[in-house]
């Protein structure tokens, strides 16, 4: 568990800088980050490539328990390690839902046995994610739940949701919510506009996101709860988010990598691998959301990794399943924003690693003395064409199949232990 990483371009999102230097790891913890070379004992020569804190990915669906044919902790963990994700913050929308401490303990046991990277589990907010009764938030917290969410289901009953928020606040629990006004978004598979009209796909107005966010902001103001919006994907929702943050509400927001790098036109001729939830947006929205990540208004970038098998995707667009796998493509896709000059690396890793860890109260995700040595080494320039069959996930539903990408992870360490690259690359 002791390593000395020499000759690295060190990405430090906390200080907002990239320095060339050395990182010393002792007992699985970062012992020192120094500029320049050390005389003795370099064990990993980084060859001038980037060394960054490992990604903390909020919202990964590992289909255990219930649908292991789609993804298991073994396959998801391998994909995460190869993609530079050192902490998977898992979703509770499994079968059954993670809504009791017993199921959570079962899941944690499976995860610890099978996954080479860390797991930070989230639990459901309401029983069966049905939006009626709150789960045992206290017990689930004791069992290790880092946040509470009904995933892509909105708690429609405002009274139920406000009680959940109030109760969660008393325990300091973080609530993560999906922001889509449920009435407007029922049955929608695309964002309304010229493209959806041309293709005849049922669509939802982008305003549905702002409406749901507005409701939640009012509830947070009322309850004082800690709140994270899973994905903010439209320009129209941003001013409301900004006002809420400026008013001092305990609020953060995320966005998926797919909404940062793709737009509604990518669906083209009904390509169901591009069907995600919420649906892909217009190019104007995509640009606005990138700007919001840059300014820090949007805090986190995640993969929203959602494995789906071929059978659930090989259907007409409006009835096909939503979601895309993303653990292995998160970093290469995010690097598109870097290569395009839209986001620099400290900003990217602030959103990929530092902010998610901070928000969940986890010590990792940092490039500083005393933090766990969850590190990734990557060459930002390696070009490749993605072949979905090479993905380590059991499900291959990536929208980036055949896409040209640039940047690949060559090594991943969790707590100072190498879990990807080197001999097992």
């Amino acid at each position: 568990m002791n390593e000395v990483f020499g000759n690295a371009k060190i990405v430090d999102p906390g200080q907002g800088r990239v320095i060339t230097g050395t990182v010393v790891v002792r007992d699985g913890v970062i012992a020192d980050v120094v500029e320049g070379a050390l005389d003795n004992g370099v064990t990993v020569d980084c060859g001038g490539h980037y060394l960054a804190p490992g990604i903390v990915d909020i919202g990964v669906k590992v289909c255990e328990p219930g649908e292991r044919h789609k993804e298991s902790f073994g396959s998801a963990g391998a994909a995460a390690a190869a993609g530079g994700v050192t902490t998977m913050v898992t979703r509770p929308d499994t079968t059954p839902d993670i809504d009791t401490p017993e199921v959570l303990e079962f899941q944690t046991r499976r995860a610890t046995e099978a996954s080479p990277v860390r797991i930070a589990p989230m639990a459901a907010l309401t029983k069966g994610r049905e939006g009626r009764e709150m789960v045992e938030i206290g017990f689930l917290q004791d069992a290790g739940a880092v946040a509470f969410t009904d995933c892509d289901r909105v708690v429609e009953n405002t009274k139920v949701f406000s009680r959940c928020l109030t109760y969660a606040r008393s325990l300091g629990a973080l609530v993560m919510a999906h922001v889509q006004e449920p009435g407007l978004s029922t049955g929608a598979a695309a964002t309304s506009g010229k493209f959806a009209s041309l293709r005849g796909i049922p669509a939802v107005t982008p305003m549905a996101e702002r409406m749901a966010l507005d409701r939640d902001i009012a509830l947070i103001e009322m309850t004082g709860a800690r709140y994270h919006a899973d994905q903010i994907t439209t320009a129209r929702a941003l001013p409301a988010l900004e006002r809420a943050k400026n008013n001092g509400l305990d609020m953060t927001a995320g966005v998926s990598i797919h909404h940062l790098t793709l737009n509604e036109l990518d669906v083209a001729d009904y390509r169901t691998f591009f069907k995600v939830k919420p649906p892909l947006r217009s190019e104007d929205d995509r640009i606005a959301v990138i700007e919001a990540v840059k300014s820090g208004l949007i805090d986190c970038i995640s993969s929203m990794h959602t494995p789906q098998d071929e059978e659930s995707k090989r259907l007409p667009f409006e009835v096909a399943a939503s979601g895309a796998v993303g653990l292995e493509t998160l970093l290469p896709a995010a690097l598109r924003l870097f290569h395009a000059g839209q986001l620099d690396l400290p900003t990217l890793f602030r959103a990929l690693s530092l902010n998610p860890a901070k928000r969940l109260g986890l010590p990792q995700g940092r490039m500083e003395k005393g933090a766990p040595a969850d590190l990734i080494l990557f060459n930002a320039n390696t070009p490749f064409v993605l072949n979905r069959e090479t993905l380590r996930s059991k499900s291959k539903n990536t929208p980036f199949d055949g896409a040209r990408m640039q940047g690949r992870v060559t090594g991943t360490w969790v707590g100072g232990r190498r879990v990807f690259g080197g001999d097992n690359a």
Partner: protein
Amino acid sequence: MTTRLQHLLGIESLHPNDITAILDLADSYVDLNRRQVKHTDALAGLTQINMFFENSTRTQASFELAGKRLGADVMNMAMQTSSVKKGETLIDTALTLNAMHPDLLVVRHPHSGAVDLLAQKVNCAVLNAGDGKHEHPTQALLDALTIRRAKGRLHRLSIAICGDIAHSRVARSNILLLGKMENRVRLIGPPTLMPSGMSEFGVEVFEDMAEGLQDVDVVMMLRLQRERMDGGFIPSEREYYHRYGLNAEKLAHAKPDAIVMHPGPMNRGVEIDGEIADDINRSVIQEQVEMGVAVRMAAMDLLMQSRRAQPEGVMV
């Protein structure tokens, strides 16, 4: 022949020359269909399967008749009562049929894009007979043929498409076709039945019939698709008829020689007044049905010609 069509999935992928080629050939089939002996051997020995995943009497009959007059072996499959109900996926159904070596599949499906999906999985020609709210190319072609024969041309006309645009694949295909042939297209309907972003298609959008029908050459009415509506789009049929139903008074705003069209089946007293529909001086609704058979014959004939022109083994 100009066309290298492998499938006919929509108007979107057609070149104006393709459209003209289909219409020209269809004109000759109109003549054939008016003879006593209505038969050619253009598709002799070929197998045509009609797969209708959605109820249809008129369109299916039109395709069946078209295939039979071209000499094809035509089989109708009522997909609503078949193994689809037993949980078989669209792809599996397609692969099963594909193994029977049909030459042409005519497919109607309630979901947009389903026919495209099916076309990717089979190695025969696929003809879209209507998919969800996406396209219905042969309807647009038969409308175009009807207009061309009534007006003597298919360009620089002012054409109003009225009513339930939101649920209509007929409207989408017609907007694309009429736009490609350089006509002025107006859409008229209540805003709840108007899809978003329509003004970006190069059409004019109106909410008022009198205003929208002003000086148009062609009035195309659409059926109010009550079966596709999941919620209140309009307050009542009688209010809809009052504001958007075509009657003599509203039609008076169009040019005196304007023709009236309807893809059928009509809801008399909902979107169109019975007397207008039956007025032989204005209504070309019966002629549309006649053109339908001819256009489908032409489209199928051309598809098979371009398939034959392909060397063995490279069919996509």
